[in-house]
């Protein structure tokens, strides 16, 4: 049996219907355990105090913001090459979830930044590239919303996603260049990964797992909705013709 059989809407609805409750429950458990463990049962950082605990929201959401776009890229490619409708609809379903993750990452970052750097926003390369990612998500969703024919919309958004990925990546590195040029010696960096100690690391891992599962659950749910919308549209079209 090939994996592509799951790309059939009927098959996908059956499988995802069974998977969805399990994924949802698992994600809920991971989030609750990870966040509570992280918030209440880890010591304060010697430099950052209790503010460091926002890391349990910030890092997982930032991770999923990028992975959401990656997932859209892969599903768009599958749609363009093999024309599986579920793949295109999964890309469409992932966009708002990815956008929300980007917003969470930006907002938690700003809240964290205020006590740490004394400012909500700095044009640090990482922050800026997330802002750019946010704009790409917006454009992608706007194109989906603007085109009426769903297959054409899937085609065009897939092409936009491919070209957008190249330019998002390019922007990511261009921003590095630009920032060094303007703010010589600015040492704001979010790269705390090296100095995250084990006490922080394990709850973080659980929280990340929770976010991954949450993302998966939301995308599955939204894809199911999109499939139902398409089916309703197809039924209405058939009704009208006969």
């Amino acid at each position, binding site marked *: 049996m090939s994996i592509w059989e799951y790309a059939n809407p009927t098959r996908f609805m059956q499988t995802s219907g069974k998977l969805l409750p399990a994924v949802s429950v698992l994600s809920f458990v991971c989030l609750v355990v990870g966040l509570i463990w992280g918030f209440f049962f880890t010591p304060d950082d010697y430099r950052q105090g209790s503010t460091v605990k926002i890391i349990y929201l910030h890092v997982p959401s930032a991770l999923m913001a990028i992975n959401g776009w990656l997932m859209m890229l892969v599903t768009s490619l599958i749609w363009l090459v093999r024309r599986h409708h579920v793949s295109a609809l999964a890309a469409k379903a992932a966009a708002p979830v990815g956008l929300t993750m980007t917003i969470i990452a930006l907002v938690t970052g700003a809240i964290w930044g205020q006590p740490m750097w004394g400012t909500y926003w700095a044009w640090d390369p990482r922050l800026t590239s997330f802002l750019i990612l946010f704009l790409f998500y917006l*454009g992608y969703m706007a*194109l989906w919303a603007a085109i009426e024919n769903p297959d054409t919309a899937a085609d065009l958004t897939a*092409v936009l996603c*491919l070209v957008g990925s190249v*330019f998002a990546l390019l*922007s990511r590195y*261009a921003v590095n260049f*630009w920032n060094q*040029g303007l703010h010589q010696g600015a040492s704001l960096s979010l790269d705390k990964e090296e100095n995250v100690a084990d006490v922080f690391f394990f709850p973080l891992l659980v929280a990340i797992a929770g976010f991954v599962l949450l993302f998966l659950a939301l995308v599955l749910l939204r894809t199911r909705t999109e499939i139902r919308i398409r089916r309703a549209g197809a039924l209405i079209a058939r009704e009208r013709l006969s």
Partner: protein
Amino acid sequence: MIALLRRDLKLAIRAGGGFGLGLAFFLILVVLVPFGVGPESGILSRIAPGILWVGALLSCLLSLDRIFQLDYEDGTLDLLATAPLPLEAAATLKALSHWLTTGLPLTIAAPFLGVLLSMPSEATLWLVASLAIGTPALSMLGTFGAALTVGLKRGGLLVSLLVLPLYMPTLIFGAEAVSRGAQGLPATTALLFLAAITAGCAALLPFASAAALRMNLR
């Protein structure tokens, strides 16, 4: 192939708004800035590279929805798609004529507007060079955006939303080259990056634009 370019240029001149509009917009934008930030030449000369590049970028946006929209509405695009000229070539030529009617005039006008913003004279050469190298990429990206939205009734605003994030790297390297030039630093690296983006766009985007056009005509 030359026929399509010649026709587009002829149309741009005769229909009005082709050459003039983007340039006039650029001028107004640059004139407005001192009213917003004050007439101090110190501040103006420091932000001049950014203003000129952002202005050029916005002026490029103005005429994007005309690239394919008129041809789509009167049926020319259907006929072009059945013609022996591949759509990839048509998209490239459309981008070229867009550049000739907006990017090139902007490049020529920019040094004069730089004077209004009291941009240091050492930066002028870098400004012209960076615009000459960078604006073709803007036209090609704009053509891609126009190809994506050609089937839409009111695609103008959407094109801006789609294309502006794609303009980001070009803007960064372009403005960077000029501001380094203004500070008397070597700006060749930024210019090389800019050239790489333009070359990459020329290699990649005609195919993406033509694919989007075919999807829209289907």
